[in-house]
């Protein structure tokens, strides 16, 4: 090999190393500075319970088929099918070994809003931190306080069952770089307190977009189709469009939407179905004003 060729080759190797380094730097797990989770005071447990229902934690983290009080045991393990493979949500009960009892508020908060696990690893966005990223540190603190009052479970959930390349955690940094944002999904009149509250609930803890917004091949939202309906990630059927352009609920009034979230009945007295049944149970536990705020926001969306 000539001298020039050797030089060229080592140049290329250097470039590749630099590129990999840059990729790692750009996509490494990024928890908040420690100060972000300090000075938040004692959690308000009652407020934390409202955040808990708004966030729908139990719908994925309770055991399969859990009813009533068993929904408060966040044992994990209920399979969540997706086009990328099957996820098994972990045990997030306060058990010190099987659950998150040994975590700090900062560790919990970084998982919730930055998708960073206790050991500093990337978490899969099947855990909707892409939505929870919008949650206030106060809500995270209150939620953490409430969750620590829940029963412990010693259950250990199976590991996620994902084919290559989705089993490579490092690649999630690339996904985050492309899609993880805490910016508003749409513009609504933020001066209207009710709309702003609805936006917070729907785009943040409620994580409605995770099912109701279509995704591209990499699992990122199609930004201009916000809440415009999507294929059911768990199999057949569709998750409906919930913008004012919807064929199914476009004609509903704000009070029709709020009433549906409270009772599970549509204006025609058809009933809630599919995975929305779990969601509606959670929404029914919120104060009426929260459901009204969600309804006001949905009515203010750009039609699909």
């Amino acid at each position, binding site marked *: 090999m000539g001298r020039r060729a050797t030089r060229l080759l080592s140049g290329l190797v250097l470039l590749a190393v630099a590129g990999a380094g840059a990729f790692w730097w750009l996509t490494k797990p990024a928890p908040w500075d420690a100060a972000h989770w300090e000075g938040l005071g004692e959690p308000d447990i009652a407020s934390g319970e409202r955040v808990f229902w708004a966030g729908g934690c139990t719908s994925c983290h309770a055991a399969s088929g859990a009813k009533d009080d068993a929904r408060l045991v966040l044992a994990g393990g209920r399979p969540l099918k997706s086009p990328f493979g099957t996820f098994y949500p972990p045990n997030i009960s306060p058990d010190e070994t099987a659950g998150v009892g040994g975590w700090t508020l900062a560790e919990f908060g970084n998982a919730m809003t930055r998708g960073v696990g206790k050991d500093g690893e990337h978490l899969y966005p099947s855990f909707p931190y892409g939505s929870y990223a919008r949650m206030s540190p106060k809500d995270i603190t209150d939620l953490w306080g409430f969750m620590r009052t829940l029963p412990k479970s010693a259950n250990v959930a199976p590991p996620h069952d994902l084919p290559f390349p989705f089993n490579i955690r490092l690649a999630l940094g690339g996904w985050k770089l492309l899609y993880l944002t805490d910016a508003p999904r749409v513009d609504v009149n933020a001066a209207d307190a009710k709309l702003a509250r609805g936006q917070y609930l729907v785009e943040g803890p409620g994580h409605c977009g995770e099912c109701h917004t279509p995704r591209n091949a990499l699992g990122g939202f199609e930004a201009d189709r916000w809440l415009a*309906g999507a294929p*059911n990630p768990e199999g*057949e*059927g*569709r*998750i*409906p*469009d919930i913008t004012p352009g919807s*064929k*199914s609920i476009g004609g509903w009034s704000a009070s029709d939407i709020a009433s549906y979230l409270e*009772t*599970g*009945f549509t204006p*025609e*007295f*058809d*009933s*809630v*179905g*599919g*995975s929305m*049944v*779990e969601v*509606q149970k959670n929404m029914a536990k919120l104060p009426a004003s929260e459901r009204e705020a969600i309804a006001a926001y949905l009515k203010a969306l750009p039609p699909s």
Partner: protein
Amino acid sequence: MKIRAFALAAALAGLGITAVTAADEPQAVRQQLMKKVGQAAGALGGIAKGEKPYDAEIVKASLTTIRETVKVFPSHFPAGSETGSETEASPKIWQNMDDFKAKAAKLGGDAEKILAELPADQAGVGAALGVLGKDCASCHESYRLKKE
């Protein structure tokens, strides 16, 4: 051979067309039955919301409609009616027919219980509707697929 294959295809296509258009096919019958239940729930809902005055006769008739309709409802899911005619029936119905029938029976049984102690006012109707609504949802959770 070719002609026979063509005739067979034509016959099958003919069957297909019949299945799509007949008003008494199972898909259409069960959709009508669900509409009846929805209307009965709507009559109760009007009272529960205070949009209509409490009327014991309407409450009784609506509950009776629900009880009677769900008795026959699960028998309209024969093999071969899994698809077509905009059915929202999930394939899981045929995989778990016993559970599907049990869920229908639960709604019928709850309607029966409520009939035995007829709700006497608006609040009572609201509470009854809460019980029935949970039954509707628990079946629709597993066995109904939304297509749009």
